[in-house]
Structures are given as C-alpha cells and as structure tokens.
C-alpha cells in the first residue's frame, strides 16, 4: 500500500470519527484524530494480522488499545480493514450495538480482544499475551497503545517494571504523547516528567517518533521499533502527536478530548477532509 493510499484511508477514517461522534453527540474525537495515522499504518503496513478473527490470535501480531476512549478511530480502522462491515459504524454508542462507547469483547465485535476504558490495564494484558506467545514458541509481536495521561495510573508502572524485569522483548508499547488530557495540559494536571528517562530507568528500550502524524515518520519509526524487539528489552515508542489532528479548530487544544462537534462544526471539519474511500 502506497503512502497516498494510506493517506486516503487516514482522511476517510477522520470522516468516520467525526460523523460517528456527531451522530450521538458524544465520544472522544480529539485523541482519535491524533492517533489516526498511527492506527492506519499499524493495521495496513506494520502488523501481520488476520481479519478472519479468532480470539486466540495464534501466529499473528496482536494489538491492544489501552486508552479505550479513542474507540472511534479503533472501530473505523478495524472496519476499514475488513474486520466488520463499515456500515456498522452507524451504530456507534447506540442501544444493542457491538460498538460500545468503550471497546469490549462482551458483544462479540471482531478485532477486539479485551475490554478497555478504565485506564491503565492494557499494558498488563499485552504483556500477558506476549508471554503466551513466547510459551507457544511464536515469532510474533504484541503492540499496545496508551494515552500519555493514562501513564498517571499506577498499574502502568507495575507492568513496566514487570516487563523489563522479565525480558518481555516481543512487545512494543506506544504512548500517544500529545501532552493533553481531559482537564488540560498534562503539565498542569499532573506532570509526567521525562517519560523517555522514566521508561529507560525501568529498563525499556525507548525511541521517539517526533512527527507522530506523518505516515513516513511512523513507518520508519515503527520499523526501527520492530528491529529492537527480541533483544531482551520491551520497547517503548513515544509517539508525539497532535490531538484533533486534521481538523484545524480541534488542534492545539484539549477542548475536543471528549466533545462532539455540532452540525456546523461537523460540516466545517468534513470540508477540510474531502471524502476519499466513500462514507459509510
């Protein structure tokens, strides 16, 4: 898949995110838009995965979304990559939908292997899956994505200590490093300090992708991350992103973390991202 094709999917996923949250006047567009390029690259170019979904995921790479509130981008990327019909995006957050506000296995949505939403749990789950892959003798990689604000949860650091102490080196944890959370800048809410130094001090191999919304930068950075697996250390990617990326009035603010656009704002946002692969 070419960079242009990836970019086309990015634009379409942005449209999906905006239309999903607009329809139900709820959900989390900011972080979703900030991670769109990353998830599009992950599912199209980086992971070896099978859209004929099986919970055990044997002999394929696995992805765990720990910051479950960015479900809109997750659902759109799963649907656009063939895990379930794109039209089902129309049911996001509605009664009887498989597309719950936060991702869950409970309603049997293909592509999802764990519930997330209550923060800080996904790193432990990903480590567990990575340990099972080692026991099963697989040469595959487990990926996870975390919000930077999520790193304020204590369980993350239990997991970080465990993964390094036990050489869980078939695992790449990515941090959506947008430096914003619901109540404001992470520096104002609870400063994260030097994240790179923190993960390194815990024994991880850390790399940064400074242009976390640039497809080529993501592909290069994640290839580097993949090359660092299998060398005794878990790998952490600090993915510098812009919350609300691709919609000018949603960028450079934390205001759109968990707020849906109104009709006028939606029209404006969609006009900035003309249809590429067809709306659902």
């Amino acid at each position: 898949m070419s960079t242009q094709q990836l970019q086309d999917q990015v634009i379409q996923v942005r449209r999906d995110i905006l239309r999903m949250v607009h329809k139900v006047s709820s959900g989390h567009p900011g972080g979703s838009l900030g991670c769109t390029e990353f998830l599009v690259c992950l599912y199209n170019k980086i992971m070896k995965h099978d859209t004929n979904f099986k919970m055990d995921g044997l002999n394929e790479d696995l992805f765990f979304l720990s910051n479950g509130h960015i479900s809109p981008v997750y659902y759109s990327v799963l649907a656009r990559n063939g895990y379930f019909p794109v039209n089902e995006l129309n049911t996001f957050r509605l009664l009887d939908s498989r597309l719950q506000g936060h991702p869950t296995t409970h309603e049997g949505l293909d592509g999802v292997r764990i519930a997330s939403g209550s923060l800080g749990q996904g790193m432990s789950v990903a480590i567990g899956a990575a340990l099972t892959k080692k026991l099963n003798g697989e040469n595959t990689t487990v990926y996870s994505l975390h919000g930077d604000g999520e790193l304020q949860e204590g369980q993350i650091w239990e997991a970080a200590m465990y993964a390094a102490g036990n050489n869980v080196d078939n695992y790449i944890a990515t941090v959506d490093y947008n430096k914003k959370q619901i109540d404001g800048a992470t520096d104002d809410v609870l400063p994260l300090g030097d994240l790179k130094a923190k993960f390194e001090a815990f024994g991880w191999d850390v790399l940064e992708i400074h242009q976390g919304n640039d497809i080529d930068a993501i592909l290069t950075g994640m290839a580097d991350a993949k090359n660092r697996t299998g060398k005794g250390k878990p790998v952490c990617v600090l993915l510098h992103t812009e919350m609300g990326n691709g919609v000018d009035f949603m960028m450079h603010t934390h205001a759109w973390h968990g707020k849906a656009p109104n009709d006028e704002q939606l029209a404006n946002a969609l006009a900035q991202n003309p249809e590429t692969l067809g709306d659902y």
Partner: protein
Amino acid sequence: MKKYIDQGKKDTRSGFGAGLAEVGKTNENVVALCADLVGSLKMDEFIANNPERFFQMGITEANMMGVAAGMTIGGKIPFTGTFANFSTGRVYDQIRQSIAYSDKNVKICASHAGLTLGEDGATHQILEDIGLMKMLPGMVVINPCDYNQTKAATIAIADYKGPVYLRFGRPKVANFTPENQKFEIGKAIQLTEGNDVTIIATGHLVWEALKAAEALEAKGISAEVINIHTIKPLDKEAILNSVAKTKCVVTAEEHNYLGGLGESVARVLAQNTPTPQEFVATNDTFGESGTPDQLMKKYGLDDTAIITAAEKVIARK
C-alpha cells in the same frame, strides 16, 4: 445421623497446592502466577515440576490480574495466587474489566480468606470477598470446606471455561470429605439428613455445622447439613428441597452477613418459599489479631453459634 471422621487436620491452601500440582501434570495449558506469596499459597510443587509455566509477578497484584487476562489469549489457563484480600478488594476493577467483562478464562485463587488468617489482623483478613466476587456477572464463586475438597475443586476449575474465584484458607482444619472426590461446580452436597432444621454452610463452617448437628441430635433435634461449596451459581434446588421438609434454615459462613452466602440463600427463599432464617456470619465488622480459634469464637463463627442459631430459628417456625 451419618457421622464424618476427621482424617487428620490439614490446611485448605495445601489442598489447592496439591490440586495445582495435579493439573500441572495433566493440562499443559495451565500456568500459575503469584504475587510474592509462593510459600503461603503452597505453589512449590507446581513450580518445581513446571518452572517454565510459573510466573513470579512480584508485589504487583493489579498487574498480575491483567497479565493473567492477557495470557488466556492464545489458550493458556492462568491460576493467580495471593491472599483473598489482595485477590479481590485490591484489584476489583482489574478483575471487573479485564477478566469478568472480557470473559477471560482466569482462575483467581485466594488463600487466607476470612478471619482464620489470624494474627496478621484486619488489613490481611477479608470478610467481603464473596460479596465482591458474586456481584460480578459471569463469575463463579467457590469456597470448599477441607483439604480434599479444595484439591478436587482446583482440579475441576481447570476444565471449566470462564472466570472463577476459588477461596480457601490458612489454618489446619478437619479433613473429612472423600479423597479423590469428583467436584461438581454448582452442585451442593447433603451431608446429613434431618427434619427439624436445615444448616447450609460453606468453607470452614461446614465442619462446625457437622459438630453442631451432632450436638443438636443429642438434644433431640435433627439437622440436615448441606455443604454449599459453590456460592455462585447457587444450587437452588438443593436448598428448596431441604427447606420444604425442615421449614427453617441456618446459613453459616466465614464472611460478613452482608453480601455473603446467607443473603444468596435468603433471596432464593424469598422468591420461592419465604422461610425463617438465621445468619451465622460476621456482623458488618472488620476482624482483628488473634488465633483462628479465638477469632472464630469471638465473632460467633463456631459450632456453638450454629447451635444457638438453630434453636432460635426452630422457635420461629
């Protein structure tokens, strides 16, 4: 009345250790995780036999629950081990989201439950864990009564697909159920036949109930003792069949009366056949330091308390 013989006092946690060692031999998907309490959980034999399938987690209980959930993806059957308090209250949200709501095949194995942990006191005792776990949709809750039954339960849950909370204890107690028994999840066991009162007990209180039944027999009262090792799913039929005959019931458990076995039984009775019931349980309180025997006596969790409750409930018929 049928008599039961103590084959020699043993701790239920050792029954867990023996059962885990057994499933370690027979099921290669079984893995064990422990949060720095290997000796207390009696996991040594499993570890010696299967070092590659044992995961020392350190003191990271929350992480342990998440790792266990993740390990099921790819077919492993994780048994987690720590004290009951650190297996439930400390990690409730991790169990709720990553295990129960995600329907993961994790066996949460909890030792040192209730007061009989003893001298460590209330920070390490827990009298709320049955309530916490039974409220989680899809969670099976098991509290076996002695060494043999705990071993059998440990073996049985490896074959059951879905989350299970297995609760056992520290003190050496009477071992009176058959060796190598078949353990049926959700199937109550009638230990004695009686007409005057039903005593429904779980865990360490089952032996106390048998002692109470013997004393009651001497007073001319015939008690039917039922061992409810599975609190969820509850064997409603066994309860209703017995109560149809005796018309009154005593429930006995090493747990707070709020949220425990007694409330589950009361709900079944209220919906089907309202029946006088007395609760042998702790009365909305924390525990404290002391020997197991001292604590069970002080908090009214022994045969004497069951006898008093039986006489009281019979008078209410």
